[in-house]
């Protein structure tokens, strides 16, 4: 079982009222950056890097970062910079980027170069995830959402070829054209750094992932829906002649631990109060899924019908309510014993080889975060490793996917 720590690195100095009064009441894309104070930003970036460095000390196997644009919910607008810093300031944990939004890059060769540098500086600790990005990533970079999947797949193919085929070579594709591809720096890991794909499980991406043997990391998806989506992955894998295992599956959850259940529950509310954390309020569909972003292929529209609806996504987390979220194990919050007990249930059902632990966000304080990480190291991670062994949750480093 591979255990990695995650936070969205939220900006915190704004109110729910500020968001409600913004265009389309949206926290992303059009929420004005006049709400941003770079003094506060300077403190937060350094604090978040401190926390990640502490995660190495407490024993996490990986440090997971993500990237979003034009939003206070995630300060990782250029995640590769944070990754480059951690490549140098840490020694052991994998640096797991979930992921670089490929379609928004007009020059994927530059991205291949950045990732190769991170892989070398970290001495081979990079896990390079790729995503399509939400619609906001397309809109914030004026990337045509209609070509999102085509650009994702072509940029991926180009980067893999750049990493694995000696240059110079020519690339004349649909969306990318290079007469000379020959970046001098190539990754340390051969044939290339591991590639994992995070997402909420569109059938097209699940099939593509299974075709490439890439682990799929489910981002806070409903456990029932996750089982349905894993079945789509498994069907494709079998069509390609292999049987997927836990090493092909990851799962992300908000997991917060404190000394007592009562205090953890109090602190855990910070995911949902104080500012507008991820998923709290529904985003305008035309921001998250702009015209052209979602496939119209009837085959995949039909496959989508196989996936059960997530009751917590419809009206946003605020509408769902804290108690209901906890009762459904959609966030795991409590004392070490409670968290371990609840995670055992979740792990037995979803069977991921990779667990992403989203320890803090929203208005959870640095002090509470550090105590949470300390308890993770002392009690939760060792117990999860035992559970992983007992449930045979092999990870991608124990068994190549």
């Amino acid at each position: 079982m591979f255990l990695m720590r995650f936070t969205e690195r939220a900006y915190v100095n704004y109110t729910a009222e500020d968001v409600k009064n913004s265009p389309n009441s949206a926290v992303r894309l059009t929420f004005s950056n006049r709400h941003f104070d770079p003094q506060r930003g300077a403190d937060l970036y350094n604090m978040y890097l401190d926390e990640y460095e502490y995660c190495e000390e407490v024993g996490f196997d990986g440090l997971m970062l993500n990237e979003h644009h034009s939003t206070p919910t995630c300060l990782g607008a250029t995640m590769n910079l944070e990754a480059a810093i951690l490549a140098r300031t840490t020694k052991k944990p994998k640096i797991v980027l979930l992921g670089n939004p490929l379609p928004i890059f007009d020059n994927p060769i530059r991205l291949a170069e950045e990732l190769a540098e991170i892989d070398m500086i970290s001495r081979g600790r990079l896990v390079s995830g790729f995503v399509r990005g939400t619609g906001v990533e397309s809109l914030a970079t004026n990337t045509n959402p209609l070509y999102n999947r085509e650009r994702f797949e072509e940029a991926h193919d180009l980067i893999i070829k750049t990493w694995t085929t000696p240059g110079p070579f020519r690339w004349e594709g649909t969306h990318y054209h290079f007469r000379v591809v020959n970046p001098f720096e190539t990754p340390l890991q051969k044939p290339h750094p591991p590639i994992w794909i995070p997402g909420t499980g569109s059938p097209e991406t699940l099939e593509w992932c299974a075709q490439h043997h890439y682990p799929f990391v489910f981002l806070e998806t409903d456990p029932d829906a996750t089982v349905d989506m894993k079945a789509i992955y498994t069907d494709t894998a079998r069509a390609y002649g292999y049987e997927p295992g836990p090493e092909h599956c990851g799962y992300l959850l908000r997991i917060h631990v404190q000394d007592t259940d009562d205090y953890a529950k109090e602190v855990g509310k910070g995911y949902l109060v104080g500012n507008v954390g991820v998923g709290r309020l529904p985003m305008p569909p035309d921001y998250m899924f702009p015209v052209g972003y979602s496939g119209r292929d009837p085959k995949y529209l039909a496959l989508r019908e196989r996936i059960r609806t997530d009751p917590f996504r419809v009206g946003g987390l605020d509408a769902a309510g804290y108690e209901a979220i906890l009762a459904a194990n959609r966030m795991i919050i409590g004392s070490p014993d409670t968290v371990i007990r609840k995670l055992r249930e979740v792990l037995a059902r979803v069977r991921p080889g990779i667990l992403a632990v989203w320890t803090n966000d929203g208005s959870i304080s640095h002090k509470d975060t550090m105590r949470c990480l300390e308890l993770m190291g002392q009690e939760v991670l060792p117990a999860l490793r035992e559970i992983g062994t007992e449930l045979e949750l092999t990870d991608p480093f124990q068994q190549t996917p």
Partner: protein
Amino acid sequence: MPAGVHEAFVDVGGVKIRLLKGGAGAPLLVLHGSEGSLGWRHYAQALADHFTVYLPSHPGFDGSERPPWLNSILDLVCFYTWFLETQGLEGMRVIGWALGGWLAAEIAATTRHAFSKMLLIDAAGIRPQQGEITDLFILSPAQIRDLTFHDPQQVPEYAQLYPSEPSPAEREQAVQNREMAVRLTWKPYMHDPRLPALLARVTAPTRIVWGRQDQIIPVECGTLYHQAIPGSDLVVIEQCGHAPHLEKPDEFVRVAMDFLP
């Protein structure tokens, strides 16, 4: 559909597109905007008393096929000059609204014999200097509908244009129409930086019609078109939004018939 109006799929270079055709007299081409043809409305029927009105659905809209090479307004220019040749319609009159107005202007600037007269309605294609063309691609269809009209109460066919309960097929078609508009106009958004300069080539008599209260393409763009096309005139319709032919069809048809014959 009124009697005498026919719907057919016509072949242009192996691509089949939907065409509504009705009326009698000299041919008049109507090029629709980014939401598709919106069907045979009052203005089309009124014009059909004087002309044979051709209302095609652009490739990718309303069930018309899209050839794989067609991804931009300039590709659409190639397609429609081909359409005019195959239908024997070169030198016909043309009306273009919004995206269709942009298309008509591009064709007129590229192919001088394509049109004998051109009427543009609240046309896209030129970047305003003061305001902005509203970003339709971050708005919901309901928000776009609300911005389209100055006063929905005066739109005689509002209920037909926006059925309260569209069928699943109608909903799917509306999404596909929007996707095609995204394909054609994403970047540069809804305009061609070359167009103001190229419009100096236009020799067809041109009338530009604009709703004063257009909240999607500011009336300033009407002035820019007027300045760019030699000999053109500009008619601004008061108390009217982005779609004069739908919001004030009687007044629009008077303005059109004052020019087209």
